[in-house]
């Protein structure tokens, strides 16, 4: 992304469905409140049932949990974003769709397999919904979004990568509008997998806190509409970003923070700005001991004077592949309101980390904001947003 290029990717539509609600204003109000009401989910399918903290989607229409209802949460977020952006039905047909998810429709596959086993079906098929296309097909059939679809599966950076590629496509003139969707719907594979890796918190998330002991998983759908806009209009723009690979370990970033620092520096270069131009950072902040170590080390390497930073996962849970879209939508909604949201769950400073997230909301004005996302498989992404005041 080139600074000063005439075509810029403006964020012009948002939709959010998370544990805080299914409307943007409910979500913004919820994230400003801070600590969420964690739920407990019992994984009773195993010989020894396991209780895990969890933050499921909260829908005001009390929708159910199986395929139609859960994909409907995606549809709701998408419709809100398209409506705000003023995308007409006729324009949807050619609009490219960039989807990021860790698990796509694996929950629906699990449900079908479990139902078949329960019914005594001798031919019960594990993973009957193979592939990644179910959400995309749903959006094509039910919401008329028939343009080229790109289905990212790079763990927790999935929809951050989707956002960066969509912005690049707009800047390059490949499209005038693009839809970015992050989807993470409840499924046993993810819950049990994270539990098996001993990455889940006992009760709540405490990002960058001395007592941090893991993460809480959350469901979420985020939708973002981008459009080509000239540089002299106000709004929130994707000003730059970078995506890089850290081959230190498949499940953790290099704890010295070097690769995280490298992707942040590359993002700054891509936006054409110096490090002191960053007004605030949205950290990845998983509250897992090693990942917060690496992230704090990376931030300290890049920022001699640490700007204010926040972590959002302690309010909505870790929405995994969706977090690029959900957390970007939260930050954009907050920036439009002129505030930076607080970090829930932080109380005790860890002098080994040497960083302290913002625990109270604070005013946020025009300027550059860095949003960081890191994932399994050594995938690191950093997004730079710029807020420009509208002339009015």
């Amino acid at each position, binding site marked *: 992304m080139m600074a000063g290029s005439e075509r810029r990717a403006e964020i012009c539509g948002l939709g959010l469905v998370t544990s805080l609600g299914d409307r943007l204003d409910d979500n913004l109000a919820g994230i400003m409140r801070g600590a969420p009401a964690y739920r407990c989910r019992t994984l009773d399918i195993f010989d020894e049932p396991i209780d895990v903290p969890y933050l499921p989607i909260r829908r005001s229409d009390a929708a159910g949990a199986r395929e139609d209802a859960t994909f409907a949460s995606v549809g709701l977020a998408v419709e809100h974003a398209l409506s705000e952006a003023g995308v007409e039905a006729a324009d949807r047909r050619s609009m490219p769709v960039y989807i990021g998810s860790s698990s796509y429709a694996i929950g629906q596959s699990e449900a079908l397999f479990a139902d078949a086993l329960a019914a005594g079906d001798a031919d019960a098929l594990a*993973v009957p919904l193979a592939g990644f296309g179910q959400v995309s097909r749903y959006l094509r059939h039910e919401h008329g979004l028939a343009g080229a679809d790109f289905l990212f599966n790079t763990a927790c950076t999935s929809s951050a990568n989707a956002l960066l590629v969509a912005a690049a496509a707009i800047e390059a003139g490949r499209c005038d509008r693009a839809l970015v969707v992050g989807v993470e719907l409840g499924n046993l*594979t993810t819950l049990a997998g994270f539990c098996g890796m001993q990455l889940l918190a006992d009760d709540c998330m405490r990002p960058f806190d001395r007592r941090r002991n893991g993460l809480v998983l959350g469901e979420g759908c985020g939708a973002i509409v981008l459009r080509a806009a000239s540089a002299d209009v106000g709004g929130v723009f994707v000003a730059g970003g970078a995506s*890089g690979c850290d081959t230190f370990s498949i499940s953790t970033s290099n704890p010295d923070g070097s690769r995280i620092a490298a992707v942040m520096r590359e993002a700054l270069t891509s936006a054409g700005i110096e490090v002191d131009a960053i007004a605030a950072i949205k950290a990845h902040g998983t509250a897992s001991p090693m990942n917060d170590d690496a992230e704090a080390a990376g931030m300290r390497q890049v920022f001699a004077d640490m700007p204010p930073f926040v972590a959002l996962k302690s309010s909505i849970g870790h929405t995994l592949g969706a977090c690029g879209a959900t957390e970007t939508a939260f930050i954009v909604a907050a920036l439009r309101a002129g505030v930076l949201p607080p970090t829930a769950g932080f109380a005790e400073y860890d002098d080994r980390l040497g960083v302290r997230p913002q625990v109270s909301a604070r005013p946020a004005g025009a300027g550059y904001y860095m949003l960081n996302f890191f994932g399994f498989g050594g995938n690191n992404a950093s997004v730079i947003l710029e807020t420009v005041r509208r002339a009015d």
Partner: protein
Amino acid sequence: MRIEVAAAGEYYADLGAADQLHEVKDLRPLLAAVCRERFRRIDRFTQLALLGSGHCVRDGRLPADTGLYISSGFGSIANTVNVQRQMFIDRRVPKPLTFINTLSNSAGYYVARNLGLTARNQFVSRDAAPLEAALQLATLDLVRGDIGQALVGVVDEASLPLDEHARRLGVGADVPLAEGSHWLLLRPAGASVPSATLAAVDTLADVAALSAWFARFDASPDARIWFADDVSPPARAACPMLERLEAALGVYRSRTAGAVLRYLSGTTGEELITVVEDDGRYHVMRFVGRL
């Protein structure tokens, strides 16, 4: 910008029909020839990715600004099947590495580590057109100058038992199956004329757009061949009468990528056009020249 196909390589295996075959080849003995280090406890999907990419990048060296793009129709399906069976039949929590390998970008991690890559590392899919999605991403990054080269691979494994795999593919147990890992190394074409280029990769909204796309070409159809699976009669009518590439491939999601590799390394035709029909849309590619 013209995009040069600088190299290509693959691993491909015909498996035969599901009702006659009950195992797939052990790939571990083949990995030593392409891997710098011995990767332990990697799944078959990753093994295929390492083999195909290793056969494409024969000396194992790429510049630091090489972007990695992996695609797949089904991803790490065998591992995901095993995890679901462990949970729902054996009532066991999946082991950490087994769970991590259900993430398809695990393969990208190992390929990047094997080739010493640190730039962008994407896993992107599309139901019927995984190669096309990856190429659209790679060419965008090449055109913008974000990367200097792109290593693009499409990988699809067969999971056991094969009769279940055939059901997921929507084919009968008597249909020959295959698995493959097909890779291209792309870079901006320099001043000299490259032997092979990727001339186009597009997604078209309908048959009318497909007809208009074909109408752009005025070169002799004698030199052009095409490959398409299961296109509908309207789409077939929209296409000019081109010689069909007989790729002799079994059924798997990366089949179009297999056809591209066979064209690039073959002797038939001077251009290849591929057409994939998907929900009324058409994903098309055009390769000119051969390696």
